[in-house]
């Protein structure tokens, strides 16, 4: 067992974990943050994407012990002060989800995409989300949702 200290969604946790414990299992089983999902066993699907120190990471590809000292944001921590993140709003407005299983990872990956490219074209969105699979939407409305968020964030920035 190894002791780690992580900050998840602004809350500090110190835990005893097996060295082999995957971050996604740590989040889901130890912290009960079940919004981060598992859809495959080969790091293809992206349902488990979280942010570690601000970068999007598939939490099935990293061990909890590697995250000692890290700041982690999961889907549960994306909204702030009761306000949905523009991406959450966009997915809702544009029907960017159906079953909702891929959605947390998709939103977290899209947030990282918009951080790197605040005004992506349709093509850039499609390529930017290549690490995340959705089986329900055909991606059409996911693209619209990300565009919605990009425009909303740009408008908010312009207003600042």
């Amino acid at each position, binding site marked *: 067992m190894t002791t780690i200290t992580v900050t998840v969604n602004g809350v500090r946790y110190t835990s005893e974990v097996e060295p082999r414990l995957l971050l996604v299992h740590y989040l*889901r089983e130890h912290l009960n943050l079940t919004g981060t999902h*598992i859809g*495959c066993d080969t790091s293809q699907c992206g349902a488990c994407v979280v942010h570690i120190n601000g970068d999007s990471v598939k939490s099935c590809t990293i061990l909890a012990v590697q995250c000692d000292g890290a700041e982690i944001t999961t889907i*549960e921590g994306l909204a702030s002060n009761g306000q949905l993140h523009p991406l959450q709003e966009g997915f*809702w407005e544009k029907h960017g989800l*159906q*079953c909702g*299983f*891929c959605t947390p990872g998709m939103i977290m990956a899209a947030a990282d995409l918009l951080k790197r490219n605040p005004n992506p074209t349709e093509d850039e969105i499609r390529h930017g989300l290549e690490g995340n699979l959705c089986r*329900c939407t055909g991606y059409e409305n996911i693209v619209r949702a990300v565009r919605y968020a990009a425009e909303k964030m740009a408008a908010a920035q312009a207003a600042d």
Partner: protein
Amino acid sequence: MTATEMKERLVGRALKRREDPKLITGHGNYLDDIKLPGMLHIALVRSPHAHAKIISIDASKALAMPGVVAVFTGKDMLDINPMPAAWQAAGVKNYPVPPRALAVDKVALVGDPVAMVVAENRYIARDAADLVEVEYEPLPAVVDARKAVEPGAPQIHEAAPNNIVFEWECGNKAAADAAIASAEVVVKEEIINQRLIPTPMETRGSIARYDAATGEWTVWMTSQAPHVHRLLLTAFVFGVPETKLRCIAPNVGGGFGQKIFCYNDMAFTMWAARKLGRPVKFVEDRSENYKYSTHGRDHITEAELAGTRDGKITGLRVKTWANIGAYFSTVAAGIPTTLYGRIITGVYKIPAAYVHVTGAYTNTAMVDAYRGAGRPEASYLIERMVDRFAAEIGMDPAEVRRKNFIQPEDFPYDNGLGLLPYDSGNYEPALNKALEIAGYAEFRKQQAELRKQGRYLGIGISSYVEICGIAPSAWMGGQGWGAGLWESANVRVHLTGKVVVTTGSLPHGQGLETTFAQIVADELGVPYEDVEIQWGDTQGTPFGYGTYGSRSLAVGGVAIKRSVDKIKEKARKLAAHLLEANEADIVFENGRAYVKGSPDKGKTIGELAAAAAVAYNLPPGMEPFLDETSYYDPPNCTFPFGTHVSIVEVDPETGHVKLLRYIAVDDCGNQINPLIVEGQIHGGIAQGLAQALYEGAVYNEDGQLLTGTLMDYAVPTAAMVPHIETDHTVTPSPVNPLGVKGAGEAGTIASAQCVMNAIIDALAPFGVKHLQMPSTPERIWRAIHGK
């Protein structure tokens, strides 16, 4: 303001979904999110062989591992029955061999479970499963349905001689033979509809808890049909009363058919929970889902289509080998029979058609319904053959379609294949609209120009019809379906005026809560926010056969409407009593009952609900409370239709296909929520075009699944799917009072052949007449270069 102007109608509006707030914030409740006190975890020991005898199983090392609670094998579970074979091919002998909870004595596919380890956590369970030693005696395997029924093929089940599950036919063989023998033109093709893996993003699983004091189970399951699973598990597998089992489907992360069926894990978690007295959980990982949960399609077909030189189709003869996999999955035989053969002629009047289907066991994963279920296979076949025929006689494929379409005045239309009559349709406007959006005439000119420059573009047309709203019970009984297919709903208006609807339908992405609430709010005239839709728990919902076959609106939704109608009727009676008016003079409109001619004299539904609930002043004989249940069994299925058009460019050097445009014009009857309908169409199209371009489950000859993970099985990413252009026509269904038809499967049913027809059109200059799917660059390059 008059009473009729007071409330805006919600039906037909693109409301955003009420389901979404929890799902976009990480607060959904999917199966693997559920933890119960004292819960144990199961890991399976699965066969590495496609076909083998089990010689011995030694679990001693696993049992010695700290944290391991028990190891069980199939022989421990002989006190329960195999899974039921609920839909057998109609009118012929079937040889159903459904799976047991765990394999006994022999295995029939790679991934067949031979033992289960129960441990304190999933890491320990998995480690211990690796320590279970199983000795096998491998047997020869067969993976191809046509080869499986040939003499000398390896025999998989003693109870199914020659690996035949059933042999079934429909249509008129003599007429089809004669039409083909006397035809001016006959085109013949071997058409393979490759095996697909449904791939809901959430895999499957079950959690079972047993209460020894009452003998009752609660099972949480990834299910599209919890009421059916309750019935099958109790009455057939365990032989206990239905009342001893409560099934709960929490949020379900996609199904696409794969979660309709009664699976072994439902049974072995129940068995283990009872045996051990602790709750147990089993969740597949993705590679287990790919190996053992059901696959779809997998047909080999020899097809012949006959016609005249001027484009009239005169006959169709089809011989299909349908791969059923290693065991008989729940409704496996119904898919390649009723839902395939009976709609093989599609949108065309074909005077003579005949279909013969052989269902075959092979050493592969079970094959059962996958989005569209039989109808994509039928639609692919006829639409490919029609294009093949058009090319043969040198006629525009759009023109051949127009010449053979069933005409609006032909409805209700009997296709002569043992199906109920097509309810309504108007096929040409949808075709014309799609071609107009595509700029068809202009495209043909551009195509000819570009060919001169060595660029190969193609356009593909797919006109489809499907069977949705699957029911009625009496007809489905005659199709071999082992139960009814009605739906039920309860509607209650509480004292506060809040409305609670419970439904036996089971949304798993379709947005039924939103759609149903729109209907109820309009019909009852109450605020949308005051309507709550509850589903998923057999303890709190009336019986339903589940959500599949695009039937939850056309059957389940109509059951809700009929309960609302009953509520309104009772409310009118009560209003007449309270207003001291004649019942005949009471108008119910916009949530208010009033006396005809005096709109001021009335009671709102809330007031009437309160009056009914407190029951101080009811008419003689009226029971308290506004609470009504309906059981709706429709008189017919519904038959959505449409035309899709796609444009591709093929690079002859690399064989790479670029999908330039995809246009979908669909007619699902009246639309309750166009945003949701469009989303269903998008998703369906992505799955169908993925079949054309990317996906295919591949086994080697030994029965090893070569596409066993998402690394090898090409579920498309966002970059592999084009922008989709949608439009629609509206031909209401006369079958139900909502005029709805269903939209969940249409996209998948239309799209594979739409893309294939475009690719083959692009390759026409190279003499390519047909290509098998998926049309990988290698396959296309070989077709161009004749290698």
